[in-house]
């Protein structure tokens, strides 16, 4: 079928300076057991194409799920009409941009395919996972879920180049809710951050089979715990909170389209300006951030972005100094600055914009015990459950599911409702400890929202455990 659609595209592609088609075919299945009951199973099959035209300085797209010759012709005509009608008003002379002509291919590594395991076995796995979350009257809700997605993209330029990639992704989750009186608290598997590329082998790697009883124990511990104290202290963050910290206060402010102002009406602007790249001290010497699209099994690995630009690993921040933004081919041309291959769309019906992909904090040298032993008074937080940051990506406040005080170099009392707040521009300069490979975890989220029209996209964040000094922390009301 794909070959037929490709032939149709070549037939209907208009005679313009540049024309491409991005054909996206997605299938997914969601399985979910809640309170021991299998919830309605839903599968999705989605196929459509976006045709992009650049001509006479203008840019336009037409997207359709009608992949017949006439459907593609209409989409191509719409793309051309938009390029022509807006060419005098474009933010940039699109004709001056050298659009990529990729010839690459990429496929997620999969060793235990979703399709090779019978449906009954997957349901049984989830029932066991859900059962492992019970056993106490104070547990008022519990659920185990698996979300499988396979996405195939074929990128064709009308003048001949062709690239394709096939991504297989798994999002496993366990969550338990405990209640006593008017207090209700929850624990989940990594704050729902253990999403990876691959097959069912991922479940073993992220503790899906074994973590249930620990989550129950921790949820019950929280019910009896005092509130997190309100004071300025050292803050040790586990990878399942670091993923959010990196995402909100490094990833988003470094997106080049935000810096160029495209997002100001929706997701917001950035405190980062173009003149900062190459010299601005974003964090302490310990801060090393990479754009890393080819780490096996990370959630947002790929061979090329949705403008067709081949992806490669780059340092974004090295030894604390800001080096390059997260911007794809169009933003790079507009800003006259080097970026990365991160122009991405969440499907065939949305145009590519600058997104994070895999954005990782590189490991340091400290063991977990060394990080803890160096703290006189602090708190160790795990598993994000609340996130909020201003539209310039500076003033933030985040909350976690679980925390434990650190007193005189020892982990001590469990505390509930831990929150902390700070300012991006100063927070990262207070990074005083970075965990080694043993503390490093590969995580991500399926839910990064941005763009007009709106798009939700997958991103990956890998990080070690990290230690910050002088952070304002607090607890519940």
């Amino acid at each position, binding site marked *: 079928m794909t070959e037929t659609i490709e032939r149709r595209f070549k037939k209907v592609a208009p005679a313009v300076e540049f024309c491409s088609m991005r054909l996206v075919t997605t299938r997914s299945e969601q399985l979910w057991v809640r309170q021991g009951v299998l919830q309605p*199973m839903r599968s999705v099959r989605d196929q459509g194409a976006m045709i992009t035209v650049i001509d006479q300085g203008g840019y336009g797209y037409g997207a359709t799920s009608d992949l017949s010759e006439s459907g593609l012709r209409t989409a191509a005509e*719409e793309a051309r009409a938009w390029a022509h009608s807006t060419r005098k008003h474009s933010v940039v002379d699109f004709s001056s941009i050298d659009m990529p002509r990729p010839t690459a291919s990429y496929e997620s590594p999969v060793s235990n395919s979703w399709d090779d395991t019978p449906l009954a076995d997957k349901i049984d796995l989830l029932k066991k996972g859900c059962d492992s979350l019970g056993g106490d009257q104070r547990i008022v*809700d519990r659920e185990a879920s698996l979300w499988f997605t396979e996405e195939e993209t074929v990128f064709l330029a009308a003048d001949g180049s062709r690239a394709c990639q096939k991504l297989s992704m798994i999002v496993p989750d366990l969550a338990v809710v405990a209640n006593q009186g008017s207090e209700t608290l929850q624990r989940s598997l990594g704050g729902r951050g253990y999403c990876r590329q691959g097959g069912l082998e991922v479940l073993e790697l992220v503790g899906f089979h074994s973590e249930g009883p620990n989550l129950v124990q921790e949820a019950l511990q929280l019910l009896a715990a005092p509130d997190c104290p309100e004071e300025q202290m050292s803050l040790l963050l586990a990878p399942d909170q670091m993923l959010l910290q990196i995402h909100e206060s490094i990833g988003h402010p470094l997106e080049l389209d935000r810096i160029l102002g495209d997002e*100001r*009406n929706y997701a917001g602007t950035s405190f980062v300006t173009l003149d900062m790249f190459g010299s601005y001290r974003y964090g302490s010497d310990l801060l090393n951030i990479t754009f890393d699209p080819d780490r096996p099994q990370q959630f947002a690995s790929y061979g090329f972005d949705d403008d067709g630009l081949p992806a490669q690993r780059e340092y974004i921040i090295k030894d604390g100094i800001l080096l390059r933004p997260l911007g794809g081919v169009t933003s790079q041309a507009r800003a006259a600055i080097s970026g990365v291959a991160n122009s991405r769309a969440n499907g065939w019906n949305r145009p590519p914009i600058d997104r994070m992909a895999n954005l990782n904090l590189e490991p340091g040298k400290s063991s977990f015990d060394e990080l803890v032993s160096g703290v006189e008074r602090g708190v160790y937080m795990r598993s994000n459950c*609340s996130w909020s940051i201003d539209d310039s990506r500076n003033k933030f406040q985040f909350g976690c599911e679980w925390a434990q005080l650190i007193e005189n170099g020892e982990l001590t009392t469990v505390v509930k409702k831990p929150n902390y707040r700070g300012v991006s521009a100063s927070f990262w300069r207070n990074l005083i400890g970075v965990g080694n490979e043993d503390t490093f975890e590969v995580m991500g989220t399926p839910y990064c929202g941005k763009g007009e029209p709106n*798009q939700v996209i997958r991103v990956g964040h890998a990080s070690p455990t990290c230690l910050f000094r002088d952070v304002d922390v607090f607890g*519940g009301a």
Partner: protein
Amino acid sequence: MHNLLYNLCDHLSAQLKGAEILNCSLDGETSEFVRLNQGAVRQAGSVKQAYLELCLIDGQRQAGARLSLTSDLATDQAAAATVLTELRDRIPHLSDDPHLLYNTEVQSSEHHSEDRCPAAAEVIERIVETARGTDFVGLYAGGAIHSAFANSLGQRNGFSSHSFHLDWSLYHRADKAVKCGYAGTEWSDQEFSNKMDQARRELGVLQRSPRTIDPGRYRVYLAPTAVAEVIAILGWGGFGLKSQRTQRSPLIRAVKGEEELASCFNLSEHVGSGLAPRFGKSGFIKPERIQLFEGGRYASPLVSPRSAREYSVTTNGADDNESPVAVEMEAGQTPRDQVLSELGTGVFVNNLHYLNYSDRPSCRLTGMTRFATFWVEDGEVVAPLNVMRFDETFYRMFGEQLATLTRERELLIDPGTYERRSTQSAMVPGAIIDDFTFTL
């Protein structure tokens, strides 16, 4: 597009076996999206999409699937028939669903609006022309939206609307901007010009030197757009029966009668406004109005068919996520033109941003001020305010600390376009609140 669904449902219903029941729903749109920045076009395009959702029910078992449609009847019939067979093959592997509930009383309806939308390319010319010399950034989204439901029992429900939504900001510099919206079914150059003139006037105040205030408690005015942000976050698990019965609702203390709001606080879900379809994917029809809070006290929940069966109550047709789609908050007594004098000295907040819970069981919320927020002294706007973080419980905001609500309300059409153009809306007044806590 609803006829496509009805045809598909007829085609598939003829293939059902034994006591099988089939629920079908469709959502689709033909949209034009034009993104602008600095008064120029960043991305312009058209999207034509349609999705069919099937739910095959056999006894107490169900299996569902969603697939994209081409809009060619023969092609879509063949694809849907293949999916139906797959669902039938899947059902023996599934267990009985004790919470399965679907509508069995046929209640058909049609609600369609006339297409009076402008040609988008012409509108963009007007926008660019009118915005010349300004830093205009935003999105024009327009075209047709379709929803439909059909089942093998003979129920048919169709809904379509043709509308546009221009959602934009006019920037002074950095993060100082006036946020605007213009939504409707028929474009008026004059109305758009008037809105731009108003925004330009407001931009004048933003050119004054901004002020920074210390964290602390202040008297604030939340404009309707800011109030709508607060109500919207409560929709995230607040009003649904499932979240209440599992004790996860941020409003659980109000549900249990442990917390009350001011007696003037009345909130309802009012789908009778006609902006969103009244039918759901299980075929139930939503009542015109559901009272959520009355006289400051929690009144009733949104109940999906699934929760209704699980907790043995009657459904009110809520969607699976049990979130409101057309909230309406009752007005107060203070005329809008007296807001500044009523506020006296304090903070005038037009917009809030990125709200979340900082203590869910206590319904304590955090978030940021955004766009045009002003410092007011003795009833006069003095200066724009740099962004501030708040951290405050909903119970204080609309309970003991609520000073007044405005007499006028605003109908705010959701500009959201995640997956599809939203049909949600909010009708809310502004609110003056005492001792509102800013923390950063």
